[in-house]
């Protein structure tokens, strides 16, 4: 066991895959010599050299075009889009080209690439560098969508994403980069599309993703000590494929579901989870499904404002307390 930060786990995961497979190439802005703007890719340039770890111009369309072209011929590119907000700059390549090629070619073309990106708020970067946009990807058929909450999952899910034959959108939550966690020695790989029950509970189930997972766990701890409410927490880890079976299993036990997402209110991923559970388990439910989300606003920069916008431990705690009565 080694203790690594979430950001170190990124470089560790990429290195594991680049050592294993010479077809893995890594490209993005400032990822090489500079080690990444979030220092998540430090050391890779020195270890693997400029041919495999390629600093690119600030040209998101060219980066993803290069990655897709390379992937179609059998390379396994990992492309970094520095901030997930910038996916809007190259969304055509993601939504119209990368996602659809396997289907449109009747399976002749696979696009086995990973798009890594720093997602989410909490760093006071303002509305254009703080969004949680994993729901944008969830809406596009043909993409897998992953968002880890721990260093171990960063490494294990990144490895799985690189080895997957489909394009994978890999959302790293930037406020989690300094968080430490244990990573097993030797090869680390997780399965895509499996949620994890991180805390058992009998009164209510909280489904969360990425940075909302540790907050949900902390809220669950307070609910236990302060209100004698037993709240379970599921870390979704993947939006596509979506592990509905794990959600159903937990909700069947508790009959109450609360989703906690960083997406703005309208069409956040929690709405989809809520819809599925309503259709499948309506008669098991003891209360309406409640979504805790960021309001439907651009994220403000000032700390007081950003902190009340993104779901906090307090907000999760209060929402569960009010609903589970």
């Amino acid at each position, binding site marked *: 066991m080694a203790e690594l930060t979430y950001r170190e786990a990124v470089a560790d995961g990429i290195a594991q895959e680049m050592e294993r497979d010479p077809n893995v190439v890594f490209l993005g802005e400032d990822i090489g010599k500079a080690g990444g703007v979030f220092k998540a890719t430090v050391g890779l340039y020195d270890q693997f050299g400029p041919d495999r770890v390629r600093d*690119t111009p600030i040209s998101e369309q060219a980066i993803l*075009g290069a990655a897709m*072209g390379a992937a179609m*011929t059998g390379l396994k590119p990992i492309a970094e889009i520095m901030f997930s907000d910038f996916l809007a700059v190259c969304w055509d390549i993601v939504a119209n080209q990368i996602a659809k090629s*396997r289907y449109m070619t*009747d399976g002749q073309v696979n696009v086995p690439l990973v798009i890594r990106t720093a997602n989410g708020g909490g760093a006071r970067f303002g509305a254009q560098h703080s969004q949680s946009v994993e729901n944008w990807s969830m809406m596009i058929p043909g993409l*897998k969508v992953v968002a880890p909450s721990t260093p171990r999952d960063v490494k294990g899910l990144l490895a799985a994403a690189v080895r997957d034959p489909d394009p994978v959108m890999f959302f790293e939550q930037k406020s989690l980069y300094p968080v430490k966690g244990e990573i097993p020695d030797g090869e680390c790989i997780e399965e895509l599309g499996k949620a994890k029950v991180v805390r058992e509970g009998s009164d209510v189930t909280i489904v969360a993703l990425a940075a909302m997972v540790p907050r949900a766990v902390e809220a669950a701890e307070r609910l236990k000590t302060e209100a004698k409410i037993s709240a379970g927490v599921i870390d979704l880890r993947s939006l596509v494929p979506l592990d509905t079976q794990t959600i159903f299993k937990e909700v069947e036990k508790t009959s109450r579901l609360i989703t906690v997402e960083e997406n703005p209110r309208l069409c956040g991923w929690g709405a989809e989870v809520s819809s599925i559970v309503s259709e499948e388990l309506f008669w098991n439910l003891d209360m309406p499904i409640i979504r805790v989300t960021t309001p439907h606003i651009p994220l403000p920069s000032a700390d007081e404002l950003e902190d009340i916008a993104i779901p906090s431990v307090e907000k999760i705690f209060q929402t569960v307390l009010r609903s589970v009565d």
Partner: protein
Amino acid sequence: MSDSNSLVTKEVLGQLYKQMLLIRRFEEKAGQLYGMGLIQGFCHLYIGQEAVVTGMRNASNKEKDSIITSYRDHGHMIAAGMDPGGVMAELLGRSDGYSKGKGGSMHMFSIKNKFYGGHGIVGAQVPIGTGLAFAHKYKSDGGVCITYYGDGAANQGQVYESFNMAALWKLPVVYVIENNRYGMGTSVSRASATQELFSRGSSFGIPGEKVDGMDVLAVIEAGEKALNYAREGNGPIILGMQTYRYRGHSMSDPAQYRTREEVSKVRAERDPIDKLRDYISENNSLTSEEIKGIDTEVKEVISAAANFAQESPRPSLNELYTDVII
């Protein structure tokens, strides 16, 4: 006709003529089947531009070079050696189509023929083609990516991101601009601040050359030079093919933005197939019987392709959910 290719053999001249005619007859047939309601959706015909892909194909290394283009792609596929029956079946949405009906006119691929689409979004193939070139270089496989785009796409920002990256990394790519003088319904002169589109790589140090895209021998000559340049590690190069499309942008475009006289004049004076046929006759390369023989053979191939497509079964409804993450 360009006469610097006087060494082109009789056999090659015959092949070029046959190839161009095959594309033209294919497109005429596609237009006919569209009119009969057998082809639905978009259908962008390549009639008039045949010399471009035919010449480039002849100049390329068929084992090594990759090809990518836009939605006006039927000619490129036939030139790449794909089966006209399979292409036609895809246009008709049938199970023997290259994508079993899931791609359609604009989205067909054949990895076997190193044809990487068939892309429906204007300009999107340019960064992807640059990526194919990146893979050629990474694998050191000696291939060059021929990336086609039109005069309309030349005004897309992603083209210039690609130019910069390709020049910076010295990627083996030949950008072929098929300037058919209209981006949908707007002429180049009304859409482009500078009309010398082939010179737009100059800011990136990418050389460009203007080529008579209605003269297949001129295309071959320029294509060979450009492909050698890229293959030898010099980086990207641009060929500006001056060509013309006779039909509308798509089947639903009556092309009222130009005069009939304009189209007739090009057909009469610059038609790439007529020009090659005349050249062949003047040089006694092929007899009129031999030319007639090619005409008949092409007619039969196209007729068979159309029959094959019409007889091909409709796709199984299960195909809706294959080749995608569910």
